[in-house]
């Protein structure tokens, strides 16, 4: 490998340079001739819609994938990053979008993974190191808890910690803020700043433009696998937040809009006298080894109303959703739909009565990854007419309707036969949305409906939820994103330790009230 320092565009300061990198998957060009340079002392924000190819790019930097074309320079030298081990040796540490921890091992064991095989794991050394890092980070991690017992948010913290423990020169964070609380996000921002000041390079992927503007030094935007623009650091520093956001929006969507996430305050009138569609009283669920229980949860939702559930991840949100949907056994309390008790009904029966549940675990339970997109639209209707008649599958009907839904919800898929697991997260989410909002819905539970979605999809999904409510459905919206709740809900309840600690009408000072409830103060 000769010296390539004379290459055009290569800057001595760059740790990593990508030149014309292309990656193809069956039926798709995920990265199309991408050029990118990554420098120490900079947070390089990578933006792009779902499926734009961000994670694929990261995969090549971290040794998981090999580019089909193009080349990667590390410290100015042409380098083939052949394995994750190689990437680590080069000082490239990655926090992946999908959890990369071993659930059966403890946090400490996960952090120790990767040491020389003959050694005893060096627990003491690790503990000291972790103590040092967490102190400067201001977070706490339970080193001896099993990963499977942690909430997704906690797991994400562990992953960030792991990248830090490894002394990386280049830290890559793929949607690492998606599971953090607003406070956590701010802290991560501060941390990134401190790290780049120490000379690290950071690649930061997010869908939230505000984060991009607040934490970044340089922004690259991907679209449909191509890099469509870059805001270099000089320009970045010169612009204000609003200007940056509008510039990004222009790059991403080619349209002008000031702050796309700006709250359009809900101006819906809900008939106060209308009988509640969903009535929950004293719902209780027993805790298990690794999940919190629920105690005396009570609320009503009227037709057309959106009730938000705010709270830090892992406080019983999932248990609540599952107990309502019938997937988890309730130990007490009642659930009424249109006045009739449904707590004794099975998942399928509840669905038939119009209760819908959009899960936050798209791949784990929402879809069957190896099945085609078309079938995944109807997973919850197997056997129902017109897609099945006398138990026999009606392929034409299924494909016709699936094609319609693909178009309607803008699902980006090579074909209806593509296994759904191959789609990017955002597109899988669209499949779920399409499925749950189909005919007959009366009450819909959304669990983190926009987690991992790009801006356009997030906005579209939110609009769909609002439209759904406008059709007179009752909506329960569980989210860790406070902005989202504030922009959508009529009322917001706060959950903590498996109990509702208060409910707030979404009017002017709701933000502070919810915030106070979330940190354990009275509203």
């Amino acid at each position, binding site marked *: 490998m000769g010296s390539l320092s004379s290459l055009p565009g290569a800057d001595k300061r760059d740790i990593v340079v990508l030149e014309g990198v292309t990656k193809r998957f069956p039926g798709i060009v995920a990265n199309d001739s991408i050029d990118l340079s990554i420098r120490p002392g900079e947070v390089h924000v990578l933006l792009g819609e779902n499926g734009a190819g961000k994670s694929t790019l990261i*995969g090549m930097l*971290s040794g*998981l*994938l090999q580019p089909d074309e193009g080349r990667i320079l590390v410290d100015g030298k042409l380098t083939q990053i052949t*394995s*994750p*081990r190689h*990437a*680590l*040796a080069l000082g490239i540490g*990655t926090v*992946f979008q999908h959890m*990369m*921890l*071993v*659930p*059966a*091992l403890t946090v400490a*064991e*996960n952090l*120790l*993974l*990767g*040491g*020389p*095989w*003959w*050694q*005893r*794991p060096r627990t003491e050394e690790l503990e000291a190191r972790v103590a040092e890092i967490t102190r400067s980070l201001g977070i706490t991690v339970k080193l001896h808890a099993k990963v499977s017992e942690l909430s997704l948010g906690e797991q994400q913290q562990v992953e960030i910690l792991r990248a830090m423990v490894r002394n990386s020169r280049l830290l890559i964070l793929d949607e690492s803020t998606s599971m953090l609380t607003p406070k956590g996000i701010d802290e991560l921002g501060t941390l990134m700043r401190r790290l780049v000041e120490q000379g690290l390079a950071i690649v930061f992927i997010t869908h939230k433009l505000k984060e991009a503007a607040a934490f970044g030094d340089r922004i690259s935007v991907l679209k449909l696998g191509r890099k469509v623009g870059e805001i270099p650091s000089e320009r970045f520093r010169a612009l204000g937040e609003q200007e940056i956001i509008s510039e990004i929006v222009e790059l991403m969507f080619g349209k002008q809009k000031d702050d796309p996430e700006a709250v359009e305050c809900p101006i819906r009138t809900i008939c106060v006298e209308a009988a509640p569609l969903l009535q929950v009283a004293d719902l209780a669920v027993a805790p298990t080894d690794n999940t919190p229980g629920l105690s005396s949860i009570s609320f009503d939702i009227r037709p057309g109303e959106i009730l938000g559930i705010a709270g830090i991840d892992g406080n019983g949100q999932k248990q609540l959703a599952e107990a309502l949907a019938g997937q988890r056994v309730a130990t007490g309390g009642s659930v009424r739909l249109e006045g009739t008790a449904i707590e004794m009904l099975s998942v399928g029966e509840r669905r038939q009565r119009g209760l819908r549940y959009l899960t936050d675990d798209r791949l784990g339970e929402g879809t069957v*990854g190896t099945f085609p997109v078309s079938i995944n639209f109807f997973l919850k209707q197997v056997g129902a007419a017109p897609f099945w008649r006398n138990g026999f599958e009606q392929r034409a009907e299924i494909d016709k309707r699936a094609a319609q839904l693909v178009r309607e919800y803008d699902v980006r898929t090579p074909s209806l036969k593509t296994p759904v*697991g*191959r789609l990017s997260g955002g597109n899988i989410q669209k499949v779920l949305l399409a499925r749950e909002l189909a005919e007959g819905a009366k009450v819909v539970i959304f669990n983190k409906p926009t987690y991992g979605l790009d801006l356009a999809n997030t906005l579209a999904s939110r609009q769909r939820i609002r439209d759904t409510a406008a059709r007179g459905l009752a909506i329960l919206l569980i989210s860790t994103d406070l902005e989202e709740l504030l922009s959508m809900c009529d009322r917001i309840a706060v959950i903590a330790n498996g109990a509702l600690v208060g409910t707030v009408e979404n009017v002017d000072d709701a933000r502070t009230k919810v915030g106070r409830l979330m940190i354990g103060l009275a509203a």
Partner: protein
Amino acid sequence: MTGLFSEVFLSALMFGAVTAAIPLLLAGLGEQMSEKAGVLNIGIEGMMLAGAYLGFVGAFYSGSLWLGFLTGAAGGVVVALIMALLCVRIGLNQIVIGIALTLGLEGLTALLHHFQFSRSYPRLPAADATVIPLLSDIPVFGPAFFKHHLIVYLALALVFAMGYLYRHTQLGLNLQAAGDKPAALDVAGIDVIKTRTIAVLTTGALAGLGGAYLANVGAGLFIPFISNGAGFLGIVLAMLARGRPVWVLFGALLFGVCLSLTTAMQVAGINIPTDVIQMLPFLAVMIMLVLFGRRASLPAALGIPYERGTR
């Protein structure tokens, strides 16, 4: 009837139980390692047969049992190498290859035996025992447990060595990660394929050793199909043990004891048809399964080949 259950007879029964348990123990420990690392090794019966045959050949021609154990383990490793190549490296279906290997080695070893030994049926001299001083003087138990070939004690030591390995070494962590979430191991910088290969080869070595013990010490000779399903029992033991080597030991001993019990009951003249008595060990395990089997947690990625970067 008191005379029937003399001290000598009782210790012979228990001695027999231990002898019968050792091949199962080795197979079970081996299978456990593969399973931990995420490979369902159905070919273990074939590995045992290869070990039994080559182990016998080695011991017979060299006159040294130790050399026999070595060639037996090597035989197991050779078969495991095929398994590792096909199932770990290029990700072929583990059940297909496992069964194919078992069938193939049943045939191959029977074939070789036919051409080589089927007129002479050579037999090895008795395996010399390492007598553990003091302990072997305990009545009944002494001769049953402390007068075995050295390899038996080594096998027992292996149980604890493996326990230590799984709990207290980096390799132990790696193996568990390879079976539970290989992608996480991969991004931690450890080669999943290599880790699993090592696990499968170790399985081969242990199963081969178990086969060699079965042929050289257990029977003192090789005949076709000598393993008689011991490999499949090893799979069951490994799955029952939930990752803990001592449980493999307990399971293997349970089997050995049940086998000896059937002999004891017959010798005692208890008039139950033998076919019924012979169901005993399997019934015992089935009952254990019904009682304790719940959520026998197997590694999440068991049986799933790993390929980097696929989703």
